[in-house]
């Protein structure tokens, strides 16, 4: 158990700044997820907290004690590496026993060690592999061993670097649920790094979205999903990605897709170019809900992805991606009406394609903070 507070940590590799003045706090028992694309600086952030990289600037404190100059082995922090980093000359059992035998995580009798190994390996489903060497087990099993080497020991903070990335889809879902249960029961402070938004949404108490070594937004999963701070965060969550379409605000209305979308502008939105964000799962085909915005279009492509169906719908001079369940299937080349609730239409500042712009609010309400910035 531990409270982590990180201030202004900066790490450069040559001329490249991996992380740039990051500030964050993780509360006692919190499950904190860092979400970002590869190269964003996620692993460097974890290693800075663990004391494995020499930072240019910044401080790391646990439970109010400054650990910046403290050696990693005195920090009482455990980490699962994305590369597993299992000791190749030791069996799975010896790998798992390693943190318990160092004398710095507590003192354990041989029986206690064996008992802990059995408990953790049963949970992770690798109890039949104890006497094998890392080279003799699959990637998924190696990854679970690496995770086990963390979970087996007490620590102030667990750092997990993409700990489920090499498991197959079914096992990943099981392990995700298992991890959540472990985190809730043990009440251990955890920092979890991933590029998978579903893992982030499922596990996190709070999510920090990292981009180019800086946090773009930190918030609860609901906040991040409902009110992404900019189009980058909006695109980071959801597969397929959010539809971003150029729109014009004029004469009290927002129009886009050659007039296929034409809605009244919310108060506080100034005239000019904006971008609208519509999540594929919020666009409902074929059902006309009163009060929702209706968008007319033609289905161009319909792909069945198991339970869900992904539609590409031509609308005006562009297209929208829609995800729906198979009960609302629409044949290709058929006309369709998409409806979406007004608060679900995100409004972002206008910008060039590929450029990420700030979220101003929804089509119903411009957020007050942004309004101030805009004026």
């Amino acid at each position, binding site marked *: 158990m531990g409270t982590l507070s990180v201030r202004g940590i900066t790490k450069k590799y040559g001329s490249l700044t991996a992380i740039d003045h990051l500030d964050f706090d993780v509360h006692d028992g919190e499950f904190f997820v860092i979400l970002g694309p590869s190269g964003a600086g996620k692993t460097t952030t974890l*290693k800075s907290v*663990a004391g*494995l990289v020499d930072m240019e600037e910044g401080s790391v404190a646990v439970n109010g004690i400054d650990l910046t100059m403290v*050696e*990693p*082995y005195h*920090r009482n*922090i*455990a*980490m699962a*590496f*994305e*590369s*597993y*980093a*299992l*000791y*190749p*000359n030791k069996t799975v059992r010896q790998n798992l026993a*390693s*943190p318990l035998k*160092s*004398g*710095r*995580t507590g003192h354990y009798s041989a029986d206690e060690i064996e008992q802990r190994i059995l408990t953790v390996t049963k949970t992770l489903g690798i109890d039949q592999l104890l006497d094998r*060497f*890392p*080279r003799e087990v699959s*990637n998924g099993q*190696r990854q679970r061993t690496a995770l086990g*080497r963390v979970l087996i020991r007490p620590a102030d903070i667990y750092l997990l670097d993409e700990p489920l990335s*090499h498991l197959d889809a079914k096992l990943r879902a099981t392990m995700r649920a298992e991890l959540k249960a472990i985190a809730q029961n043990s009440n251990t402070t955890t920092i979890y790094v991933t590029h998978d938004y579903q893992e982030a949404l499922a596990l996190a108490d709070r999510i920090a979205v990292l981009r180019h070594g800086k946090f773009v937004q930190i918030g609860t999963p609901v906040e991040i999903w409902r009110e992404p701070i900019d189009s980058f965060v909006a695109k980071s969550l959801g597969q397929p990605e959010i539809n971003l379409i150029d729109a014009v605000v004029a004469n009290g209305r927002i129009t886009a897709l050659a007039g296929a979308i034409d809605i009244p502008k919310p108060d506080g939105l100034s005239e000019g170019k904006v971008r609208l964000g519509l999540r594929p799962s919020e666009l409902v085909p074929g059902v006309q809900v009163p009060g929702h915005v209706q968008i007319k279009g033609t289905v161009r492509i319909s792909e069945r992805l198991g339970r869900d169906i992904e539609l590409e719908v031509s609308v005006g001079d562009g297209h929208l991606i829609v995800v729906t369940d198979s009960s609302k299937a629409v044949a290709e080349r058929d006309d369709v009406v998409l409806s979406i609730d007004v608060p679900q239409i995100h409004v972002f500042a206008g910008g060039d394609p590929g450029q990420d712009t700030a979220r101003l609010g929804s089509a119903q309400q411009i957020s007050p903070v942004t309004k101030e910035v805009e004026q």
Partner: protein
Amino acid sequence: MAKELMPGQKRVTTGGILGDLALVGWFAFSLFPVLWMFLLALKTPAEQTTTFFQFSPTLDNFITVLTDRGRTLTGVDFKSAILLSVLNCAGAVLVSLVIGIPAAYAAGRFKFKGSDSLMFNILSFRFAPELMVIIPVFVIFNRIGLFDTPVGMIWVLQLVTMPLVVWILRSYFQDMPEELEQAALLDGYTRKRAFLMVALPLVRPGIAASALLSFIFAWNNYMFPLILTNAGSITVTITKFLGGGGQAYYNLTAAAGVLGALPPFILALTIQRYLVQGLSFGAVKG
């Protein structure tokens, strides 16, 4: 249509056969001097200058070289020389490993000011000709009484072996993923224990390879023992059978040569199994 090959089977082509034959020819050509030495070592003094392969083989030469008989005949104490050589070379390798392994680890893991020029400096011991330094070393050895002592020999031979150990092992340490040691640090082990527990066992093939190679280099060194000892070493002692103005015992020289090649050969066979082990055993994602 080419015939389908079974796994492990290779396609036979004319070019391939010709290439193999050429390699066999080269093999025979390059090993011929060694064969000649073996044959010569088995010949009697009367046959030693003949070039025929027909002779009555005898092990007499080996017995002569290794016993007092050779000593009275030629004045060469081969047995003591070979033992002393083993001692000197093993000592030099041991010193090189004790100092060279930590040096290689530091050089492979940490970048510090002047680390590159330091490594280059160590390497320069290898490519600078020994003749360049032999006179000053000779003078120094005479002054401080290291001339013709085992300590003196070990000291100069480790000039030959140390660069090899450091350079070979440095690349092993560099190839080893740093995250293995980082994991050990977070498991609660100090840097020293992480090195002993994780890094050292993994570079065992490298230690074996560099120890073998540096032993051979020290064993084959001629210049240092020639100038810096009287007690002799294997390389210098073998040449003494050629008489230096007196009678040349070619057959005894050959027998001594065969015996002199044995220690590195035995060493190579002993540590061969460590040489073939892979480095990371697939414990880290590739």
